[in-house]
């Protein structure tokens, strides 16, 4: 074996592109080849129970209307998409920065530190999208009326999947870089539950008209725009105006993504 050093083969730009793709490849390998069932269980157990209890059991015992499942499914899909992406970034960053230090090998790859953060978001968004898509067959299995997709607009659905994945990933990037490791369990508990219940997941946003203050509160949660967007693309139920959905998603991804990448650089380079 030759131990002799060798000058770089690629220019900086080509090296950056190759690195970015290789990091994605590593993540795909680790998630889908090494631990696919762990990933699916982690992402889908909670949504499965939401769909079953709220969409099937409650209507069955008369505690919810028979068609509640139709309003619920887009919300649970949005929730799964956002939370899976969020946890994909936040948990892995906390672990890699504080405990395993695995991030160091990525930061020494020939790619700018900012793009290491962006790559984390991209892969987490992909994880969110995969988990979100699995919600569709789950809905068909679990909900009493099965899937009702005759009113679906597929191109907006695809756009929302991508946007929702990035919305969750950008929240995760901020959490994963801003929160010290010893506080992460507290922050998760304090952030996730409100995020879960103020995100128009279990109720269409418009139905909150009689609870105006809460309706306003939900507008500060990026998940609201994802859930409502899913409702808009998958059903003909009333939903938050499309313009608001686009605006809400653009602002939350833009603002949180920018803060997250800056914080990431701050953690990566002292």
């Amino acid at each position: 074996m030759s131990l002799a050093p060798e000058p770089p083969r690629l220019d900086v730009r080509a090296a950056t592109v190759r690195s970015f793709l290789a990091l994605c490849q590593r993540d795909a390998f680790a998630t889908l080849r090494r631990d696919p069932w762990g990933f699916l269980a982690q992402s889908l157990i909670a949504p499965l129970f939401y769909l079953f209890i709220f969409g099937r059991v409650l209507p069955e015992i008369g505690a919810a209307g028979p068609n509640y499942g139709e309003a619920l499914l887009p919300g649970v899909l949005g929730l799964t998409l956002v939370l899976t992406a969020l946890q994909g970034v936040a948990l892995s960053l906390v672990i890699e920065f504080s405990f395993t230090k695995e991030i160091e090998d990525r930061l020494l790859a020939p790619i700018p530190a900012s793009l290491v953060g962006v790559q984390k978001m991209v892969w987490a968004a992909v994880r969110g999208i995969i988990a979100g898509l699995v919600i569709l067959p789950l809905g068909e299995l679990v909900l009493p009326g099965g899937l009702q997709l005759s009113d679906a607009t597929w191109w907006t659905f695809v756009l929302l999947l991508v946007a929702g994945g990035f919305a969750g990933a950008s929240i995760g990037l901020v959490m994963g870089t801003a929160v010290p490791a010893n506080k992460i369990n507290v922050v998760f508990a304090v952030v996730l539950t409100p995020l879960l219940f103020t995100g128009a997941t279990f109720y269409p946003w418009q139905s909150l008209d009689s609870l105006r203050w809460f309706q306003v509160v939900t507008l500060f949660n990026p998940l609201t725009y994802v859930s409502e967007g899913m409702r808009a693309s998958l059903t003909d139920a009333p939903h938050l105006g499309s313009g608001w959905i686009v605006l809400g998603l653009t602002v939350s991804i833009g603002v949180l993504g920018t803060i997250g990448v800056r914080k990431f650089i701050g953690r990566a380079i002292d």
Partner: protein
Amino acid sequence: MIEVVELRKRYAPKAPEAVAGISFEARRGEVFGLLGPNGAGKTTTIGALTTRVRPTSGYVAIDGIDVQADPVAVKQRIAVVPQRPNLDRQLKAIENLTFHAAYFGYGRAERRKRALEVMKALGLEGREDEDVNNLSGGMAQRLLIARALMHRPQVLFLDEPTTGLDPQSRLFLWDRIEELREAGTTILLTTHDMVEADRLCDTIAIVDHGTIVALDTPSGLRRLLPGAGGVEVVATGMADAEGALGSFGEVEVAGTADGRRQIRIYGDGVDPAAVVDAVRDSGGEMLELRRLEGSLEDVFVHLTGRDLR
């Protein structure tokens, strides 16, 4: 190959300077040692050279490339073996190497072939499919080095590479480091192990409190001891060591414990018999007497003191 000019780093506005004006150069193919107590600024200096620390001021370059201006080009040329293992725990041993090479643009067949070769060279043959969580400390360390060599770096940073290793692993690593030097790799090494520094390094910088207190070859450093013919005395009842022994040369009280004082006398041709007499005459009792052979450790302690950090 490595150039550091007036490097300064302050982590917070009011914090003391972790690095307070360090300058040095390492030639291509040189093994350059950074020695110093914990907290002396070694890791910060490595951080600045490896794109992980933004200098407060000063200039650092690798292969003529300004680290601040073009970190990606620098990262293409360097590899780092960290103090603590940072292996990818979701991947098997060989996958740690192949994915690392993929980050550096190596194709599938080539990186697998190289990974097998590098693992063999580092005594890891047969461990390819091992879960990295199950590797012993020595094996994990060798795997880290194997990973660093995957992309044929021109500059290799080794941050305390043999701390915590058994003597066999240490000797094995030293041999590999010497081979790398012969092949033309520039190596920057930090260590507390003076034997290691003495054996491996062409040039050594001793760092303390963020500055370089000495910079020379190992033999040049040994000459730094004032009066290489000095002696060290351990004695009791020597309240005024300076007064009793000052006539022999420069006296340094290196430690006190349990009424015993460890006293070093630096001077040319100090006569041990005369020192024994002088100790007795001043009412002290001699416990130990040894010649200072001028080991690197003596130089290190002479330059950086005995205080704990």
